[in-house]
């Protein structure tokens, strides 16, 4: 806090319609973000379906920290830090597996998959030690919403439900695309690294202004309906849910088309099995509505992006070093849909994807660009004068407007000022 003026350093860097370029490039700001955002707010870690059986584990991350997501023998999901409590060695070096315990290779300390220290080698010499004080570190709070597991390192703060707020409804909308009401994450991840700050990715996920330009090469040669959703005359919306969560709401366009499965560029006829299961599960009318509306395009702050057919998880490693973990969404009870989801996901995202390769190129060029400090600011004012409140009180704007970026930065400022 600046004592002379009462203006916080963050207010100097973040204004309603612009942000300072140093927010993307200053290593000290990145360190402050780790502390105030990544190690405090709710961060998406993994999905329950990645550890379906007792003793399954999968290695995930929160920022640069390695986190082991385990399902213990009681069926509870734990988020353990991958660091031996003795000398700091990583206790798990495989990406996934099934194990009741993890034994550190350095001095053979052994931890149960719920984190308890169950034994150390040559126990004489540890007389009087309290094993319960030497467990694996844990992510302080763990909560899941419809199978999506989030962790927070803060002991106190909003519940996950409070954090998700209005954006929880987008996850409800997502899971009902399955005739059994469940998403499964079973197709493995592509890991795409970029030399760019993580916030360029965060903002781009719900930037509806760029597709017409960045993706022109693929829209021009593929028989794709995506391009039309992002044009100047589109009726699609951008929305700010608060708490940094943002959405591109494409439902107005899909409802105009009034054709089930057009959101996925296909039709009921091509997915007869899926269509039948949906109608059995939800009834004809509701199934039709669900299949017209399609899945959400929502960015759950700070790292979970649902992009209609795929899921992205953003991981910051350094101020200019980030990874996007991407996989196809799979809907329980929908094998014919799932195959198409995998095929289209492989085509569009990952290091060689028709879409994501060009997005990544833009993040990297932006990152190099903002190292230039004149002009100092990044302008985010598009649509500021025409944004409005929707019936639930959330700010909405045209699909090409920068409502999402402004929402992200307003929340970012709150988190950083609360430090």
């Amino acid at each position, binding site marked *: 806090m600046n004592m002379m003026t009462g203006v916080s350093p963050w207010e100097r860097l973040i204004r309603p319609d612009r942000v300072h370029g140093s927010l993307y490039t200053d290593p000290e700001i990145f360190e402050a973000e780790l502390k105030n955002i990544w190690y405090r707010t709710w961060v998406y870690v993994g999905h329950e379906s990645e550890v379906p059986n007792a003793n399954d584990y999968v290695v995930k991350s929160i920022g640069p920290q390695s986190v082991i997501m385990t399902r213990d023998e009681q069926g509870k999901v734990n988020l353990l830090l991958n660091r031996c409590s003795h000398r700091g060695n990583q206790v798990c070096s495989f990406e996934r597996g099934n194990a009741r315990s993890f034994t550190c290779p350095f001095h053979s300390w052994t931890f149960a998959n719920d984190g308890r220290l169950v034994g150390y080698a040559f126990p004489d010499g540890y007389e009087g030690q309290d094993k319960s004080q030497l467990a694996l570190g844990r992510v302080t709070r763990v909560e899941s919403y419809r199978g999506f597991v989030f962790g927070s390192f803060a002991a106190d703060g909003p519940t996950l439900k409070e954090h998700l707020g209005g954006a929880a409804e987008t996850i409800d909308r997502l899971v009902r695309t399955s005739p059994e009401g469940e998403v499964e994450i079973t197709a*493995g991840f592509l890991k*795409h690294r970029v030399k760019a700050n993580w916030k360029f990715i965060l903002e781009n996920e719900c930037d509806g202004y760029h597709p017409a330009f960045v993706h022109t090469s693929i829209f021009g040669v593929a028989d794709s309906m995506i391009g039309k959703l992002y044009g100047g005359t589109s009726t699609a919306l951008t929305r700010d849910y608060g708490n940094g969560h943002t959405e591109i709401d494409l439902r107005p366009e899909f409802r105009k088309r009034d054709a089930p499965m057009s959101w996925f560029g296909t039709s009921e006829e091509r997915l007869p099995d899926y269509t039948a299961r949906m109608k059995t599960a939800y009834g004809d009318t509701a199934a039709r509505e669900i299949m017209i509306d399609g899945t959400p395009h929502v960015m759950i702050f700070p790292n979970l992006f649902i992009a209609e057919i795929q899921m992205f998880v953003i991981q910051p490693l350094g101020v200019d070093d980030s990874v996007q*973990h991407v996989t196809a969404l799979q809907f329980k009870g929908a094998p014919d849909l799932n195959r198409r989801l*995998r095929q289209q996901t492989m*085509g569009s995202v990952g290091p060689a994807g028709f879409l994501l390769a060009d997005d990544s190129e833009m993040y990297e060029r932006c990152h190099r660009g903002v190292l230039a400090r004149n002009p100092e600011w990044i302008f985010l004012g598009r649509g500021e004068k025409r944004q409005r409140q929707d019936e639930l009180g959330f700010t909405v704007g045209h699909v090409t407007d920068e409502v999402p970026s402004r929402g992200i930065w307003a929340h970012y400022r709150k988190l950083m000022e609360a430090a």
Partner: protein
Amino acid sequence: MLSRESSATLMSAITAFLYREARLQDEHQYEAWEKLWTDDGVYWVPANGADIDPERQMSIIYDNRSRIALRVRQLMTGKHFTQTPQSNLRRLISNIELMDEQPDNGDIAVASNSLIFESSLRDDMLWAARSEYRLRHVDGELRMASKKVILVNNDKAIYTLSFLV
């Protein structure tokens, strides 16, 4: 079994084919490269190991023939920004081995190693891979019926791979 002489002739034709493919890729001759494929060609770059099932698990590239054509068409637009400007590339192909001279369907199984130097706007990169081919004689010329490129670091987070690998 082929005679030693005919085997040597085949090996030299295969080597010439692989070198030519490498040059077309390095020099961004996309249309000429596309013509190396058979009508049922499959271009596969697995992720997370060499032995995943591409029908169940995500791959970096898993293109059937029509998607190979789409990939080439996107590159040809000149607006695939990650290749505009194009990467400068040179690759070394080595360790060429005939893995199976006369399998049941007549395709020839060949494997090689490659080391690819890429210089792009981002940085200079070194990529290493094992490539496994099924080659087929079509109208007297060798064609690729499948090409599987196993990047040595395909289990890690990798930078954009937008040139023809």
